[in-house]
């Protein structure tokens, strides 16, 4: 487009090369990607996810004592492989949670949110673009770090003569599940951050749900001997989500009657509810509140 100087009535603006620009959702996605990659906190968090995952995998594979390598059944080998590769998830989830909270509360604490909502006055486009970029980035980085962890564990196991059958579905699916889990935890943290609008409050809330709530519930369960409290624990995001990256034996273990045990898909559904509910609440509040 070129600026033309023809037949303009006096008092009207000169033509601008920017005439005709529009806010578009792909544009907002690109904007959020630029924002995410241009902060040091993002790079630190993602680097930490890789480091934790690979580090714990090497540690567990390295210290695991295997007697009589030849006698280990194939399925136990796979189980060991999954355990070693995913053991870091319970730690890297904390990093994913912190990143998820900071992505949104960082804008509120600095006032950036006013710039964001001035450029995208519909607000929800910015909210969902942020979420999508965050979830994709966390998923990809987690998938890569879990794959690296698995490779490192395989190398260590095979150096001791234990073949772990890395490329079987029984091993690969939990790895994929782990990446999904971390992405969903970052989404849950993001919505929490959008609701509370403070970094400290958001991080405390999410870590409370991920770390403190399971301890409180299982303490209560063991003190009161109440089975229903114990069953409730299964529906916490960390417990339900753990099914996503747990090893699935070919033959299900017997579950005592009256005890709830979720399978992978039920776990995914429960975790999805934990993601969707705060996400909707956050969207309504973001749209409504003054900034």
């Amino acid at each position, binding site marked *: 487009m070129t600026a033309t100087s023809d037949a303009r009535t006096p008092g009207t603006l000169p033509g601008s090369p920017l005439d005709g620009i*529009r806010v578009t959702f792909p544009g907002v996605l690109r904007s959020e990607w630029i924002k995410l990659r241009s902060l040091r906190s993002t790079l630190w968090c993602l680097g930490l996810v890789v480091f934790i995952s690979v580090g714990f995998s090497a540690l567990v594979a390295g210290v695991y004592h295997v007697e009589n390598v030849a006698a280990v059944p194939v399925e136990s080998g796979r189980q060991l492989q999954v355990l070693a590769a995913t053991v870091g998830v319970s730690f890297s989830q904390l990093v994913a949670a912190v990143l998820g909270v900071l992505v949104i509360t960082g804008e509120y604490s600095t006032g950036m949110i006013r710039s964001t909502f*001035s450029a995208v006055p519909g607000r929800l486009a910015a909210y969902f673009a942020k979420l999508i970029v965050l979830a994709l980035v966390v998923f990809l980085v987690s998938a890569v770090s879990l794959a690296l962890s698995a490779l490192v564990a395989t190398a260590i196991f095979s150096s001791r003569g234990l073949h772990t059958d890395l490329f079987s579905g029984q091993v690969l699916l939990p790895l994929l599940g782990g990446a999904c889990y971390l992405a969903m935890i970052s989404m849950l943290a993001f919505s929490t951050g959008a609701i509370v609008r403070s970094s400290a409050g958001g991080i405390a809330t999410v870590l409370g749900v991920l770390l403190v709530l399971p301890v409180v519930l299982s303490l209560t369960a063991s003190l009161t001997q109440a089975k229903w409290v114990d069953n409730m624990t299964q529906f916490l995001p960390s417990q339900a989500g753990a099914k996503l990256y747990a090893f699935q034996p070919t033959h299900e273990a017997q579950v005592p009657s009256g005890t709830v045990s979720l399978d992978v898909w039920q776990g995914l559904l429960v975790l999805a509810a934990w993601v969707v509910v705060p996400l909707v609440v956050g969207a309504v509040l973001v749209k409504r509140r003054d900034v």
Partner: protein
Amino acid sequence: MIEIEGLSKRYGTKLAVDDVSFTVRPGIVTGFLGPNGAGKSTTMRMIMGLDSPSAGRALVAGQPYARLRSPLHEVGALLEAKAVHTGRTAFNHLLALAATHGIPRSRVHEVIAMTGLESVASKRVGGFSLGMGQRLGIAAALLGDPHTLILDEPVNGLDPEGVRWVREFCRYLASQGRTVFISSHLMSEMSQTADHLIVLGRGRVLADAPIAQVISGATRRVVRVRTPRARALTAALTGPGVTITSFDDGALEVSGLEAAQVGDAAAAAGIALHELTPVDASLEEAYLELTRDDVEYHSEVTR
């Protein structure tokens, strides 16, 4: 063009903006003047759709801001606080905003050059001085080559050279036919920049007129007189609409009469005058006069 109709904002029991209506026209610089806490920033945030009004509405180019399809091309805003993530570089901040509208990277370089930020563009905003932050805010406002500019206290923290730059730039943008709306709590600043003034006090519009009219309307013109026969002069001048104030040092201040009329009346009564000075209230006094009852926090000065 900004149209404000019956706009109000209530925080709890306090009315920050109280049924405000005015129009900001293109082609001129409109100043938005008022003491701190008068509701200027709240009004501007409501125009930008950041705060929702308790009543009334604000339209930009005939539409509520949230409905604009190209908000950055329609309105460029610099809002009160630094609305920038401190961990990001100035360049990335502008690049991210530009991306939402598909504004090319070359325009980002352009506004950086226009605001003199080249040397700090790759530095993180957290380390910026107040003046640099202000320049970055202006750069962001200019990014979309907007038809309307809304600048909240734009010269805050700028050095004298920067202040002059903002002033001339605003006048230039208005001369191109853009709508320029600038807030300030300093009358002197406004008198050098604005063509039209909207004065706000305690959330209400106190004046909405061309700047000269606001000043003359609010100015109390007085004549200072000294005479050994103060009592006789007071008697000679007394009439409808004339007030005479006497001071401890013997001076009288006459309002409601021109200096010539005071002199003629004294001559007719045969009273000698030692001083006869017309005193124009300064702009600042005119403004204080206008907002005297509407300042939220009075500072008590003991004489």
